[in-house]
């Protein structure tokens, strides 16, 4: 005789993980916008020049890839961005440390630096155009400018706030100036450099697009501008979408891993206002 065993058979229930649910909901939000946009096109009843449909944008996108324009433009934009960030960061760090080492130099230069930091790079573009003409030189200079000041300023700030106790400790243990620089100044300047770079990365990306709108013949910013100029509005929107993905890509692939490896590991905080 078999005892009646009430086996608690778990009901096969398909449960989504929280992540999948989130991704699905997010996709739903995007789909919602696309559908609303497509449906609103006949309701608005304007020409594709004024209000193109998502389908038009998709066509423009395929067209841009097929003609080989898009890869070239993206490469050009990223190249300019990398050069601007690279040179701007390097100069900012070097000058930040050099100025920060001397109290008097720091005192003397900080009002000017604050003013130049406050004077947005956008305002320099007209004078750069007069001096260097419309072209890559103007864009790269504006990018170097916009990266240089946040990096310099934050580096300077953290060099100046390096604890004197540590400096004295290294010196009393017989360390020279080089040792102070290497064991105290550089490590304490690092958070400033990273904060500055993080701030600069966002400003520089916007600066890049603006510079390309004003003064380029290639690049994603130029694509956005040129599409509107030649009445191919779908191209403009395709360009904006590419720009969005580029920034999200830069943020996800470079900035976030970089922050995780440095700032978060050391328990520092960072104010990334251009991130939701």
């Amino acid at each position, binding site marked *: 005789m078999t005892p009646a065993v009430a086996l608690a058979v778990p009901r096969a229930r398909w449960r989504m993980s929280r992540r999948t*649910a*989130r991704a699905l*909901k*997010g*996709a*739903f*939000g*995007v789909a*919602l*916008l696309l559908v609303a946009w497509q449906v609103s096109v006949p309701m608005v009843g304007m020409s594709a*020049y*004024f209000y193109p449909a998502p389908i038009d944008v998709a066509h423009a996108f395929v067209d841009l890839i097929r003609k080989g324009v898009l890869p070239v433009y993206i490469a050009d934009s990223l190249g300019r961005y990398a050069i601007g960030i690279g040179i701007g960061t390097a100069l900012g760090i070097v000058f930040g440390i050099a100025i920060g080492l001397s109290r*008097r130099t720091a*005192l*003397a*230069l*900080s*009002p*000017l630096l*604050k*003013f*130049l930091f*406050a*004077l*947005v790079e*956008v*305002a320099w*573009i*007209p*004078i750069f*155009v*007069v001096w260097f003409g419309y072209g890559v030189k103007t864009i790269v200079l504006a990018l170097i400018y916009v990266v240089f000041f946040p990096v310099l300023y934050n580096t300077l700030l953290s060099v100046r706030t390096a604890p004197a106790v540590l400096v004295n400790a290294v010196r009393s243990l017989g360390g020279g100036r080089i040792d102070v620089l290497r064991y105290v100044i550089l490590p304490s300047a690092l958070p400033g450099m990273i904060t500055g770079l993080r701030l600069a990365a966002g*400003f520089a990306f*916007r600066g890049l*697009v*603006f510079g390309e*709108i*004003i003064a380029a013949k290639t690049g994603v*910013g130029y694509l*956005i*501008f040129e*599409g*509107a*100029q030649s009445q191919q*509005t779908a191209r*403009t*929107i395709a*360009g*904006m979408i590419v*720009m*969005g*993905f580029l*920034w*999200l890509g830069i*943020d996800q692939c470079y900035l976030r891993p970089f922050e995780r490896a440095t700032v978060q590991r050391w328990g520092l905080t960072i*104010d990334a*206002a*251009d*991130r*939701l």
Partner: protein
Amino acid sequence: MKAGRTEAFVLGALPFVAIVVTWALLPHVVDYPAYMLPPISAVVGYARESLQDGSLVHNIVASLARLAAGFAIGMALAIPTGLAIAMNRHVADVFRPLLSFLQAIAGIAWVPLTIIWFGIGNGSVIFVIANTIFFAALYNTVLGVETIPLALHRAVRSHGGRGIKLVTQLILPGALMQILLGMRTSVAYGWRALVASEMIAGSSGLGYMTMEAVQWQRVETIILGMIIIGVLWVIMDRVVFATIERRTVGRWGLLQR
């Protein structure tokens, strides 16, 4: 303390003096076409001229009015949206990826499109500023609500606070500090967007004034514009926003930096 201040002031003035002296001496040392860097007297002359005919004041007022309009629209949209995202998980899940994407293209990239929609002028510029400020303020609103201590949340709820009362008594005051602190950053982004969009799509304003001067190679106009853009921002940041912070967040004893 007093001696330190004088020292800082004197030292801090030195680089500015050095720049002016270099600028005055440069034409005698290096040979360059006069239009590339006009003498200081030309900039001062243009400043006097544009003050007398009122065009300078007109451009400054136009820029500031647009910034104010864009700021008001952007904040008015950002705070309710931010509250909705921060208070409801479903709303957050559905709209967060979309908004992150739109945030990545916020600002100046909209100008070519807004020129088609609104033409050259106020409409385009205000749209871009409002768009820029919206996303910066949205971030701060969401962050503000998320940093309200859970204990406070529970306390209000356990006393029966819900619905509109929860919002007015807890969420808004709790998030207010971050919203106020975030205004400074939002306006920094907005100012940048203002100058940039006026250069492309303006018919007046400081950005328009400097970009317009490029055509006529009037560098004295550009330099004057740059100085005013820099000084105005310093005044706004140091005087207006610092005062707001001191009067509100600082006075409530919440400032922690």
